[in-house]
């Protein structure tokens, strides 16, 4: 055995010292830059604590007296979510087919992909604000928004699913002389259908969540009710709405998870 003293240090996380120190310096510089340039209004922030006390004081206990308003808001949210999911899931099929590299010509693929990317890039709230300006306040704007949102999300996943299908089945259909549409119907759709049902349930759940927020910019549903309560400093009613939103989301998550487990 050797008797020379051994040295051992932990291998640094990033082996190259230059890269390591550049990264550390970069992160520190970034933090300094970000904190220095962001406009913090410290005086206003300083008033935060008493305001928080006032808001929570006004909000507790939550006030369920106007439950009729609350129920109406939720009914509308449900309707928005349901219709948007139906429209979105149906419309997502053609867009998904367009955006699947393996079954359409390249120009169509590019157009399909672009549509899905644009639909996914915008947060539903931004889309909602535009639809509110175009078609006016109310649930119609909400439905249009969430339909677009669903097309983006379901369309993307479905397109990926189509790209991964078992190609042998398609060849088999072509071999028996089936046309393009019947090949889609017999060889492609059966392979993606279970996934599509699962996705629909997932999308219903996430549309229900989203329908609570698109209302904040005027697109109907419980979000509008919440925004009104907040705007009128009706904090006890606002807290009641928030609690119910949390409860509904929990239930909807549970139901959607249960159904997906059964179907998948």
């Amino acid at each position, binding site marked *: *055995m050797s008797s020379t003293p*051994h040295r051992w240090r932990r291998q640094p996380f990033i082996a190259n010292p230059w890269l390591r120190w550049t990264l550390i310096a970069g992160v520190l510089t970034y933090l300094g830059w970000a904190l220095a340039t962001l406009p913090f209004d410290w005086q206003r922030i300083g008033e935060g604590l008493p305001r928080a006390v006032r808001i929570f004081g006004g909000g507790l206990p939550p006030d369920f007296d106007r439950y009729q308003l609350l129920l109406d808001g939720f009914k509308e949210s449900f309707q928005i979510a349901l219709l948007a999911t139906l429209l979105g899931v149906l419309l997502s099929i053609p867009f998904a087919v367009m955006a699947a590299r393996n079954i359409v010509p390249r120009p169509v693929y590019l157009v399909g992909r672009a549509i899905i990317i644009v639909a996914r890039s915008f947060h539903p709230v931004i889309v909602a604000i535009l639809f509110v300006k175009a078609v006016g306040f109310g649930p119609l704007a909400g439905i249009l928004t969430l339909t677009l949102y669903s097309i983006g999300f379901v369309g993307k996943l479905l397109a990926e699913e189509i790209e991964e299908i078992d190609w042998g089945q398609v060849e088999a259909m072509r071999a028996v002389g089936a046309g393009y549409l019947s090949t889609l119907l017999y060889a492609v759709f059966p392979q993606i259908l279970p996934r599509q049902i699962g996705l629909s349930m997932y999308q219903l759940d996430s549309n229900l969540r989203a329908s609570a927020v698109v209302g904040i910019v005027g697109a109907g549903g419980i979000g509008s009710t919440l925004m009104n309560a907040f705007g009128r400093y009706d904090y006890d009613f606002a807290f009641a709405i928030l609690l119910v939103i949390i409860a509904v989301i929990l239930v909807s998550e549970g139901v959607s998870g249960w159904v997906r487990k059964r179907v998948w």
Partner: protein
Amino acid sequence: MLEISQLVKRYGHDEPVLKGLDLSVEGNSVVSIVGASGAGKSTLLRCINRLIEPTSGSIKLNGTELSTLKGQALRNARRRIGMVFQGFNLIDRLTVMENVLAGRLGYVTFLQAWRRRFPQEDIERAFQLMERVGIAQYANKRADELSGGERQRVGVVRALMQEPDILLADEPTASLDPVTSEQIMKLMRSLASELSLPVLINIHNVAQARAYTERIVGLRHGRLIFDGPPERFDKAALDQVYGGIEAPDESMAPTPAEENV
């Protein structure tokens, strides 16, 4: 010296896994524990360092009663009991050296452990042991890059880093191929005599037990039914331990030739 008396372990209200076991191990003897799966071998070893809580009975190591220790006292006792596992139980994403030094975790502070600043004598000892078993060149490799036999050597070195008073080995060769497992058994035997360390080995392979250990203990249904030197562990004893349950691996295979490691 390890003295176990009237050790009982039962899970819930099931039949006990260990039914009043007595066993004592002295000096630097290498003892193998044989028995069918479910005979309670693993449970016995884990009761000694209290990875499993015994239901009743007494376990004394060098005069200290282990079965009633709590908190820091239990951890201090565990530092003196090395353990080698069937699945190696290495931390795959850490380097070999970090795995080896992990054997010192009971001795260093949290801050030292976190910054990997172990005392120089620990590092010296780690290198010595790793050179002894032939893995020093892998010090800065990730543990999951090593082969099975090399990984088990890391496991052995980690246990020895604890400067243990006794070494427990739970099926140390069961995940290895025959050649490698012979190497590991030889290694453990020679390390035991070099460090004058008592070793308790759970083993499924009776041929290896006979070849590499000085004493065989047979368990069946949680009871000790054989205790003696390998020469006495004959066909009758084998049938007693395994009879009617399952055939042990290579039960009566010829004893492997003696070699030095």
